[in-house]
């Protein structure tokens, strides 16, 4: 039975067009906004296994794929931001959301200051995201600047 089913599924898999995306590259700090999805796992590789390919890690690599592969690594605000920048930009525009929370947590902002962080990011959207070509590096620098000049958030600037 298993063999028969296998060969049938093979037929199916090879007949339908699965997009094989190239693997994601680098840490993504230089990525511009709306970079799109170029990974992480090519679709075809997930056909019967639910597996992921390549750099399987066993830790909380908050960097994007290919960034860090050696076990446990601490959250850093910058790599978190690079990983979820698209989602973060949407939350910044709207003033709230889970990407916003995740970035503020990764930046070390305490629970009582997170609403303020979100509100400030929201009102500074245009300067943090001046265009669609802004990179994660630049967004991170702007956020640091914004926090530095805020009495409540200055203490979180590294």
């Amino acid at each position: 039975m298993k063999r028969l089913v296998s060969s049938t599924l093979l037929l199916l898999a090879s007949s339908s067009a699965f997009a094989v995306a190239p693997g994601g590259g680098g840490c993504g700090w230089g990525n511009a906004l709306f970079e799109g999805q170029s990974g992480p796992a090519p679709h075809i590789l997930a056909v019967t296994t639910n597996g992921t390919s390549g750099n399987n890690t066993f830790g909380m690599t908050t960097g994007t794929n290919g960034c860090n592969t050696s076990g446990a690594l601490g959250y850093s605000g910058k790599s978190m931001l690079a990983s979820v920048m698209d989602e973060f930009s949407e939350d910044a525009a709207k003033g709230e959301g889970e990407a916003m929370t995740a970035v503020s947590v990764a930046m070390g902002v305490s629970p009582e200051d997170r609403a303020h962080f979100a509100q400030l990011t929201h009102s500074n959207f245009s300067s943090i995201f001046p265009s669609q070509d802004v990179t994660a590096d630049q967004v991170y620098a702007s956020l640091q600047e914004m926090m530095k000049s805020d009495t409540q958030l200055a203490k979180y600037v590294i």
Partner: protein
Amino acid sequence: MHIIKISWLYAIIILSVSLQTQANENPAHNTELQALIDTSSQSELWKDTEWLNLLHYQGGPDVTNFLSQVDDPVFFNAKDGKTNPKNELKETLISLYATNTANHNEHAQCRNIARFNWLKQKYPNSFKQTPHIECKQYNEWRKEVPEEKVSLIFPAYHLNSPSSMFGHTLLRIDPAENEQGSTWLSTAVNFGANIQNSDNSIFFAVKGLAGGYSGTFIVAPYYEKIKEYNRQENRDIWEYPLNLTPAETKRIVLHLWELKNIKFDYYFFDENCSYRLLELLQVARPKLKLIQQFGLTAIPIDTVRSIEQADLMTDTIYRPSQTTSINYLLNKLNKSQQELVLKISKDAQLIHTDNFLQYNKQIQHIILDTAYRYLRYQQNDSGRSEPNAKNSYLLLDAINKTDNFSSPKITFTESQRPEKGHLSKRLAVTAGEYNDQSYMQLDFRMSFHSLEDNLEGFLEGAQINIGSLSLRATEDESQLQHLDLIDIFSLTPRNDFFQPLSWRVYTGLEQQLINGRDHLTAHVTGGAGVSYNAWPSSSIYGMFTARLESSSQYTQAIEPAIGISTGLLQHFSLGTAHLELSGEEFYHDEFRHRLKYIQNINLGRNHAIQLSALRQRQTGLYFTEAQISYHYFFH
């Protein structure tokens, strides 16, 4: 007399073997260790469920009948650890006392930290003389992995990827305080196959099914899974917080460290992601009896149901996919507003014209949100595009400058809950008439869902059946009517926003009228086309089909045919109706066509009555068939 002799002989062999291992392993002269070995052996500790769970043993109850599901020698301390839980326990004790401490991270106290922890709880007064080991890598890892709460995660069905047709399950480990309700930084625990990028994709599906891959656990931040399932694959995610205590959760985390890079055999149908998660849950709470419910298949949603039945769930949280959200928002807009969304997604400057400004604030917000999401959806599978990025930015900027921006949030209805859908196996009893011949028929389906079955909890327009069998008996004879190995029918409606392909693939054996009587023929049939929502709860489709048929009656080994198939599917509150007209012409000039009508009547969750009528023409003759069936769904 003989028995006594043999057992003496046995004892001597055991003694000499153990003396030998003791001689090899330095710490054996340790009196505390020796006492532990004796005590644990006398109390038959190796039979303890927790021990058997931690080593993933199955079988028993005799010591010779065990087999661990782990397929990696590194995981065991005894040479025969895979098959011998008793030896494995003894050798584990010896390894914990091993004085070779050159590499602390590789010492059994670190590698087997869950086993060590469990043994320490069993014998709180022992382990005073073990060498002091610093598990540095483990301690670093633990700083990142929370250990307070566990949720079961079910990314729902995704027909266009065979691995996801039945859904998928993973676990998520949360910290005590979910940062303001966000679980993005929680830890996802996923079991999947190990794949090398160099693997040829053609062989890939076969290997995955036939067990050619090994599987390992992967630990990753949960937001990566949200991006993968919700955005890239457009699958809704269902989250079920479980009532595991922090102590039980900690057992999973400890055990996960033991499973780091440890290989299991991977089989798509049974020893898959869902099966392994049940094992983890049993490690957390040893009295659970979850895996024994699954033999031939461990369909993800069935494992979700078994977890629900074990009273582990405390809540249900729904994360709609990007396409679900877009469709939900589109339904709040009228036709011309929807067209405007499409235009704005191509040219965001239109939001400064009267076309957009004529609408009230609420509609404007929905249009902005939908257009932005649609742009993001378009980029799910592609890299950066400048027009898309520019329009996305303009819309975000507009959203940011809108006072009190708010867009409706989607919530789920009870009828959507996947775990509440009908069960996976189906048994049917049918009475029918074929021309003037009456018959009885018995049907069994291993899994999973047909277009006409009760839709609650399933994806609309998604049929996936694996292994269905029909036996038909008339007064004179009985025969195998058909055996379908795979039957997938995917109807995804097209509209201005989404243009998916609808397709069908099925293969198996079925009776065909050839040369005046029925013959069992093998076939592979496929088709591709389009479908549309003609009106609410309906789907009209049309496809081109191709068929390969093989029968001993044919002169050629394989007879090819091409054809067309068109139909209408309509969901009513009492059930589903399906009308289909199809036909195909064979290379050897045979022409077949048929008109089929099926009416399903749901009788609650796991029962249904189905009426069907068929009129067909084959080898120049007309046939009529009518039948009534009772369907029973079970696990």
